């Protein structure tokens, strides 16, 4: 009996043509009142023809996109243990709140007095973020984590220039385990990047760092907990050393979920840190954005914060959009309007729902869950570094040695078992890295199911069941996709089929 069907569909797995192959150029799925036909004032700039794009009727659109959705894995379906990504449950109250017309249907340039509630909400969120991080100021406008990094590094650059050291402080120290965005951000700010080596236990080598410090160092960029899931024990000594050398400490806050409510970067000597609202504060990842990256700043960097800023004057909230007064030293504007309001509403909704007590529990449970997974999986798999971890557990591929199976194969076999794989091949400091972050919203039952399955797979790998891995995924909507082909001859859009070829058929 063949595995193929006449239609190409397989029961609930329905194949979906591109919308350009299904839609109509004559019909459409909206209805509008008839135009009145008054004289156009386009002054010769009008196009003669409609744009060459087809449309669906409403039922066609529903089926197209619902069928597409069914080809995605999502946190609402099961554990999504991507390390460093913090895929936690997204409470639906947040969605409901963000859609209130008083938030969703207000214009960014509406008169201030008509949007006092929006400004009050942003102001309250600012207070939460400052208190949770122990920092005196926060810039709300960055649009995502990497944009927040840019914000922090721009503030550092402005502070250095204000001291007249713009030409001389040009080097930024970044650990080799850092997210790629760190060196890319430093370079985008015109700095050169110098790598910091790690110790044998997976942390920044303090002595090596001190040896690299000098009058040309602008900043260090360190993630804490770091990308190996470990807390940088020497963080204060690192902060002291860089400050003594006249530089600043940028902390990548991607992993803040591990310490939220438990420890505050401001108490550890940090000068700037971005916060991914879409990680720690549960705003949805949406298949790759939109994110939101408010950036907290120390007293030293506060004067250089970007505009706009939301301030409270008496009982009135104001948007500062000019580089004057307290903001005369601002490094300027990094985005139109005032940031990701939709994400601010969701994040504050999450914070209010958890409170100081609940947020502390978030940090605690995320670390407990990761350690539970670490201990259970260590039965068959090799830890990246020995000992406790924070919110994510790092494994290497050493335990797969001589099996002929690699990290990628193991990840693809996890797909067949109904899981989203963990982060693979990152951080770069560990061979064939597998970085697992379960988050606090997984139950013990869910963690046990996950660990039992991974251990079973690990035993199968060691027992030489190579086919199970090399041919994986076997049950996903697609088998392994040819990424080399995609990159060698990029096809980035649909184009109508060649009419001559069609005529020949």
């Amino acid at each position: 009996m063949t595995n193929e069907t006449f239609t190409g569909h397989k029961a609930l797995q329905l194949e979906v043509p591109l919308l350009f192959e299904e839609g109509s150029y004559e019909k459409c799925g909206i209805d509008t009142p008839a135009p009145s036909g008054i004289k156009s004032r386009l002054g010769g700039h009008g196009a003669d023809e409609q744009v060459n794009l087809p449309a669906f009727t409403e039922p066609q659109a529903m089926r197209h996109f619902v069928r597409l959705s069914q080809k995605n894995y999502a946190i609402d379906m099961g554990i999504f243990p991507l390390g460093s990504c913090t895929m936690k449950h997204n409470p639906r109250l947040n969605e409901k709140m963000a859609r209130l017309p008083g938030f969703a249907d207000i214009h960014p340039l509406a008169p201030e007095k008509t949007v006092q509630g929006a400004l009050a909400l942003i102001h309250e969120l600012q207070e939460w973020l400052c208190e949770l991080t122990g920092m005196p100021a926060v810039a709300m406008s960055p649009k995502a984590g990497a944009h927040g990094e840019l914000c922090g590094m721009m503030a550092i650059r402005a502070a250095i220039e204000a001291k007249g050291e713009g030409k001389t402080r040009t080097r930024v120290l970044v650990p080799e385990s850092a997210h790629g965005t760190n060196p890319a951000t430093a370079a985008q700010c015109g700095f050169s990047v110098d790598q910091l080596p790690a110790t044998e236990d997976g942390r920044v080598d303090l002595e090596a760092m001190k040896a690299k410090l000098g009058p040309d160092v602008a900043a260090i960029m360190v993630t804490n907990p770091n990308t190996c899931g470990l807390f940088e024990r020497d963080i204060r000594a690192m902060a002291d050393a860089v400050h003594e050398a006249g530089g600043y400490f940028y902390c990548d806050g991607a992993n803040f979920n591990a310490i939220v409510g438990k420890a505050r970067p401001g108490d550890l000597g940090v000068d700037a840190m971005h916060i991914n609202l879409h990680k720690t504060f549960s705003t949805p990842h949406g298949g790759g954005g939109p994110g939101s990256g408010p950036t907290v700043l120390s007293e030293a960097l506060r004067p250089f914060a970007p505009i706009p800023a939301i301030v409270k004057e008496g009982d009135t909230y104001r948007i500062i959009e000019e580089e004057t007064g307290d903001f005369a030293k601002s490094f300027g504007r990094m985005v139109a309007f005032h940031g990701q309001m939709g994400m601010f509403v969701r994040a504050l909704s999450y914070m209010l729902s958890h409170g100081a007590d609940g947020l502390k529990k978030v940090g605690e449970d995320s670390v407990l869950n990761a350690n539970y997974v670490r201990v259970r999986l260590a039965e068959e798999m090799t830890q990246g570094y020995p000992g406790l971890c924070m919110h994510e557990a790092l494994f290497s591929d050493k335990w797969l040695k001589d099996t002929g199976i690699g990290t990628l194969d193991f990840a693809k076999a996890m797909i067949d078992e109904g899981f989203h794989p963990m982060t693979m091949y990152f951080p770069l400091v560990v061979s064939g890295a597998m970085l697992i972050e379960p988050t606090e919203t997984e139950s013990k039952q869910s963690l046990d199911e996950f660990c039992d399955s991974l251990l079973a797979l690990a035993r199968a790998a060691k027992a030489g069941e190579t086919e199970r891995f090399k041919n994986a995924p076997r049950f996903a909507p697609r088998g392994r996709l040819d990424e080399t082909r995609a990159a060698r001859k990029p096809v980035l859009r649909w184009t109508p089929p060649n009419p001559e070829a069609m005529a020949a058929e």
Partner: protein
Amino acid sequence: MLKTVGARNIDDLFSDVPKDALNPKLNLPDHKSEFEVERHLGAYARMNHAAGDGPFFAGAGAYRHHVPATVDHIIQRSEFLTAYTPYQPEIAQGTLQYLFEFQTQVAELTGMEVANASMYDGSTATAEAALMARRITKRKKVIMAGGLHPHYAEVVRTNEELIGDTVLQAPATPGAGAIEGMIDDETSCVIVQSPDVFGFLRDLAGITEKAHQHGALVVAVVTEAVSLGLLKSPGSQGVDIVVGEGQSIGNALNFGGPYLGLFAARQKHIRHMPGRLCGETVDTEGKRGFVLTLSTREQHIRRDKATSNICTNSGLCALAFTVHMSLMGGKGLREVATLSHENACKTADALEAIDGVEVLNDAFFNEFTVRLPKNAGEVVDQLADQGIIAGVPGTRLWPGREETENLLIVAATELTQDSDIEALADGLKTALAA
């Protein structure tokens, strides 16, 4: 679980954190129940005057168009809402296919060959376009038209000056405008918005011809994506890069974010493009599928040599755009654009009829600038008290610049009603008479 991990208590797991920094006393309230949170946030929401609460004419880079109910339903599907970046393409074909469809729609709308999977918003896309032009031309001078949205211009400046480049802008005055004379052999790119922030329509072909003579690129900026349904596309006028704000298709006003950056370019420049790109390929059985591609441009591979530090797009906003565009197609978009234009024409006629009010644009799409006989900011504030959002005053966009004091930028869309226009005209008459 503590026992399994060999800890006596939870703080054993935090033993690397300095003792005196552990468990700080937080000056924050404890958790609230769901209905208490609704009450707390609902009170904030009610303090705001929503655009739908009355006559509404604000634009300047953010527009209130109708979003069909289907759009919001689709983007709230768990499989789209709670998925991550499609790093495992075999179980992310839903996201990848709509990104491919999005890229095709954006390329077609802008008249360009390729588009990426979206950027944060229009302003950051513009700054990235300037950096891309720098990579292609190896030149360090950016020329901006005076009609470029001032926030966009500031974002370009912030990013370019960081790396020591020269940024020049023509004076921001309505209708003024030849920037051709500013272009020279050191110019990397010319950034021109059309319709511009005052609503003027620009001849991109003429500027492009001049720029290309000097080996400079042209970046066209579109802040009102619906205009692409009725106007000649920037691509058809020869420009090299088109960036824009896609909010007005499928996305709500949201007080300025999240929005959707559009980025389209010529095929020959794809390896210089920033941001994510989705490409077509096949799986092990030869079936068509989609993957993120050309990632060797990106930060996670190239680190400090990457084309940009960007590591996300605006996925869900791109989905909203794709769904809304798929409901409209070229036909429906042209209808929405035509209605928006007609409503703007009617609004302009009504305002022109008021003594002392001067409409500065001969031609426009759905937005134009009027000069009032008095301070526009004060008039807008006054009308806001009557529940009318009259537009965006010049001083809001150019704080402290006296010559913009009496300017008011007025936008209409298909949602503008004749009664709204009447209310605006009446309100304005009264305010000006006072």
